[in-house]
């Protein structure tokens, strides 16, 4: 279990900027377009090595592989599970994380089609028992990351994996008898990936935006209904995590990383108990954007689960302004005063990779975060 024993450690939520050539090859591979497979494997290996070095250079203590092999944090699952077929879709997303905002801000979304995007032309439909087929891709990710870490002494290394509830956003079900059976079937499949990541010696980061942003996807739902919806998906996630020690697991939740207004995001207060129901040892939350920054006060009354750590976002993707390190320090000190300095790690609201305006903005935010963590540590450990 990773604690900030003598200073505030730094980490981030996952996605990092892709080098353009890697991005293009990953896209070609995903779209079934021609690409040079040997060159892809070689370049992916070197790019992961570069991105690990870059994180270390920026002062990140707990690093990952930048998700470089993935089209995105959830879509990658399409190549790792079988039991579905692609069918033409209506062009609408089944569950859209901007559904609630779109009601109040239709003009904004019409003016910014790039920022919400229609659904893809085809959608996966589950038509038979799901099974995990991503062994080769996963093994390659594990090997690339392990090789990239050689020669570096990092506090910890993590790899992300997606959750049943989020996969359910974009896969339709015609095979299982109901939503619950379907979500638990996804859980059974994803268990294999989770277990392999932990077996390889890495921390497992569970990316579960669904837990908060399901609220945005279901604009008509009431809070009690939503809590039932979310509770069942938490159970499914815990089913997928069965047998994995919680200190090997960190949960990342976010409210959907689109650059829209986020006016009606569900308050942390309304779901924090559900979040802590997940069998994880560490919890990563958005805390640095203006819709959620004030929620540090939730921890005035809510206690972290015994032995758990909190990773508040202290820099974020919602603005290309670089957070001032004094602001980062102020945010960290606030959390440390409430949950204990050793239980706080500095993190990002969401993966910065493809969400800020430019790679240089991502790295500058990392450096600002690392410097802010040093400043907070000086305050918290009384070193001048």
């Amino acid at each position, binding site marked *: 279990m990773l604690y900030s024993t003598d200073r505030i450690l730094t980490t981030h939520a996952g996605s990092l900027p892709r080098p353009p050539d890697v991005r293009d090859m990953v896209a070609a591979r995903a779209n079934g377009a021609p690409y040079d497979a040997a060159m892809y494997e070689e370049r992916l290996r070197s790019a992961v090595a570069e991105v690990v070095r870059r994180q270390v250079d920026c002062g990140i203590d707990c690093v990952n592989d930048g998700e470089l092999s993935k089209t995105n944090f959830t879509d990658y699952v399409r190549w790792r599970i079988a039991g579905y077929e692609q069918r033409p879709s209506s062009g609408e997303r089944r569950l859209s994380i901007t559904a609630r905002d779109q009601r109040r801000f239709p003009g904004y979304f019409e003016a910014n089609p790039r920022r919400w995007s229609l659904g893809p032309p085809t959608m996966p439909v589950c038509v038979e028992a799901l099974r995990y087929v991503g062994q080769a891709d996963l093994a390659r990710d594990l090997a690339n990351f392990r090789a990239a870490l050689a020669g570096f002494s990092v506090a910890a290394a993590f790899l992300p994996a997606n959750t049943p509830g989020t996969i359910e956003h974009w896969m339709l079900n015609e095979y299982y008898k109901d939503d619950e059976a379907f979500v638990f079937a996804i859980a059974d499949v994803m268990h294999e990936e989770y277990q392999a990541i932990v077996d390889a010696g890495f921390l497992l980061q569970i990316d579960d935006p669904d837990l908060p942003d399901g609220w945005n996807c279901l604009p008509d739902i009431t809070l009690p209904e939503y809590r039932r919806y979310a509770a069942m998906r938490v159970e499914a996630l815990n089913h997928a995590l069965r047998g994995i020690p919680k200190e090997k697991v960190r949960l990342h939740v976010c409210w959907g990383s689109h650059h829209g207004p986020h006016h009606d995001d569900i308050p942390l207060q309304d779901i924090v108990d559900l979040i802590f129901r997940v069998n994880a040892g560490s919890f990563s939350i958005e805390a640095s954007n203006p*819709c959620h920054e004030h929620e540090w006060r939730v921890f005035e009354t809510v206690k972290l689960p015994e032995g758990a750590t909190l990773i508040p976002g202290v820099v974020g993707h919602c603005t290309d302004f670089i957070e001032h390190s004094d602001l980062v320090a102020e945010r960290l000190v606030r959390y440390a005063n409430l949950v204990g300095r050793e239980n706080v790690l500095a993190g990002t609201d969401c993966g910065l990779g493809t969400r800020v305006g430019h790679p240089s903005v991502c790295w500058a935010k990392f450096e600002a975060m690392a410097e802010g963590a040093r400043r907070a540590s000086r305050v918290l450990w009384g070193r001048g």
Partner: protein
Amino acid sequence: MQTNVDHIATSHVGSLPRPDGLLAAYHALEAGEPLKEQVFRQTLRDAVAAVVRRQHDIGIDIPGDGEFGKPMGQRVQYGSWWRYSWQRLGGLQINDTPGAYDTAPRRSAPGAIVLTTFADRRDRSRFAEAYADPDSGITTGPRPPAPVCVGPITYTGHDAVQADIANFKAAMQAAGVTQGFMSAVAPGSASRIGNTYYKTVEELLYACADAMREEYKAIVEAGLDLQIDDPAIAENWDMVNPEPSVEDYRTFAMQRVAALNHAIRGLPPERIRFHLCWGSWHGPHMTDIPMRDIVGVMLAIDAGAYSFEAGNVRHEHEWKVWQDVKLPGGKLILPGVVSHATNVVEHPELVAERVLRFARVVGRERVIASTDCGLGGRVHPQIAWAKLEALVQGAALASKDLWR
């Protein structure tokens, strides 16, 4: 401007989203398309009436005219707050002389500060690829050709400012509003244009001061609060390359302050609010000068209230500056508690938290909740209004706490 009696007053920095009809009218004018003067005037008058009413309806205590009289022909537009002066100053010409973007970079030396080009700003240099990338989101909209000063600067905007005043006052009266503000560009920011006429930058600066004084007087004499927009006081720091010493920069900035004070001499400070900002574009802003280094310069301006950015991640921590800096007696501050820097709408509880921090340091009577910069042209109209509503709700939450 009055001190708060029983609640935190609310205002904003000026620019508000132009309705589509007004954008289209300005766009037509820019394109040289024929437009009936009478039709344009009516469009503008109606738009100002509606925007003042809307501010009043959502609970903005001190509304503005949205800067609707300052031309803006595109929904995304960051520059109308100063470009309008090109149409109100004589002695300018758009010719083949390279403008403020296109000339060769100029280098400063210790004790000898000169502004370099907009293109050579230090943030822009450090993040050159990000600024150059059309998909990065840093883009600030179209950039019209900039004028060059080729003759004596004179004020030619008398009719234009009187039209703005008439529109605004009629709108205020119709909405039942008694206090309103109108913005005008400061000499330091107006003088950042090419110059082939004046021998020195200082001469140009004071010529702008004398000319703009006409506009300042007109606004104050009309019974409106005057807001002086002068990002150049803070933003020039990024436009001095290489980075100067703080001492040198303060000396340089104080010349702009002296010119501004010359321009507003004799006008009642309690009717003037000064707006400081670090440039409203969506870039990284790594090279913004810290508030601590510039606050003394700002307070040397003969205004009764000071508006500044405090709602974005580069400047939010600077509320602490006011723990050490004494706000002179009788003066007010208008910190930005919602911002153009992100589309995410500030939660009212965050707004309240920000207001409370300032109120506890300088006193609840002396804080007007405001925005970082004008929201019009910088975020989508629907988002701009949602942010203003959050501002009002947050100020009310803070008031409840401060006057319970």
